[in-house]
């Protein structure tokens, strides 16, 4: 029997953008799949929830995802920036920048 990953069922919330961008269900699914596959399932740290903010280029296309990953056992938020192309394919991952 295949072991379930500790983060398999972690809730991923795509936050509404301050600039009023609206995400389709398909876009949301892409964002959630990316966060699950590239961040949650590759981590051994158990998480409680992930909140994702999408940053946009001036032409409105997505540029990066900033994931606030809330740990399950401490009140720690790991902040990870994922640079993406216009179709939400990963270009690079920058772990824990200080969003300050």
């Amino acid at each position, binding site marked *: 029997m295949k072991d379930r990953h500790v983060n398999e069922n972690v809730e991923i919330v795509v*936050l*509404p953008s*301050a*600039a*009023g*961008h*609206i995400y389709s269900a398909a876009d949301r699914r892409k964002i959630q799949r990316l966060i699950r596959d590239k961040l949650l399932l590759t981590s051994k740290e158990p998480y*409680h*929830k992930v*909140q994702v*903010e999408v940053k946009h280029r001036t032409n409105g296309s997505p540029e990066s995802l900033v994931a*606030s990953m*809330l*740990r*399950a*056992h*401490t*009140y*720690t*938020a*790991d*902040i990870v920036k994922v640079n993406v192309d216009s179709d939400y394919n990963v270009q690079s991952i920058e772990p*824990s920048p*200080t*969003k*300050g």
Partner: protein
Amino acid sequence: MKEKHVNENVKVVVLPTAVRATYAARESGKIQRAVMDKLLLPSKEPYHKVHVVVKYGPDGKPEALVAYMLRAHTYTADVVKMSIDDTYKVLSIEMSYAGDEEEYPGAPLTRVSGKPKPAPDMVFGTPVPEIPTAKAGIDYVCKVAASAGYKVVKLLGKDANLANYRHALSGHLKAFGNIGHGYTGGIVLSDGNLTSQWFSTQAKKTLWPEVIYFNSCQVFNPPLQPSIMKAGARTFAGGKVNLLIGSSEEVFKCFWSKVLKAPVKMGVTLRTCEKQKYPVPNAHGICGDLGKFLPIP
């Protein structure tokens, strides 16, 4: 000497919308002037801030300004709609406008004016009430504060959002407490992160005379900790390192129940509570005024 109007220096913020993300300085200036001249200066009610959403007609031209006027002494927002022409000249004013609340990004908890609520003394909240110990911690502290005679507002889940936290923190409270996730640059709320960037753009007495306690990991570090002190907090306490879910709330509860009930020094109390309730020493930090909570300076 000419007297200054109570609303003369109120900040007017033009919010981005789905139609327009940014406005040129000239356009923002016209919108801000319309709100100042037609709404703020004719009013005797003191306001804290005004958020403005521009509404557009089908031809893409501006047709109305909806102003969310946040009162200075209560959690009331008076919502006013001003019809305008395409040069932002005001044509008519509809007071107590009730429509389109959903279009206001980051609306505060209480929006449309009704019976004004008294300004709270203290606000405690958690964006993660689904964590039982977080919610229990906030419930407990609210109860202790209320029984000590303070007016308390509790913000849970979706209400623990950026607009409500910013509004509360800039309301010159006596105390503010949050239980939730954090990092060196901010805390995570239900709709985004409240960061050091926001604190560092506040005037130097914005948070005065607040005792602020973020029960969050790593927040007692730069850049967040100095930015909070720079914005005028009386005292700031928080996690220096990662704080455990479960035992950190016990320290939070212990601290508030002691300082609100008895004339004990805040610095010593945090150390004592940590020693009694937390498995490792020196996980929490406290700075600013470490003396007794009362009297409020």
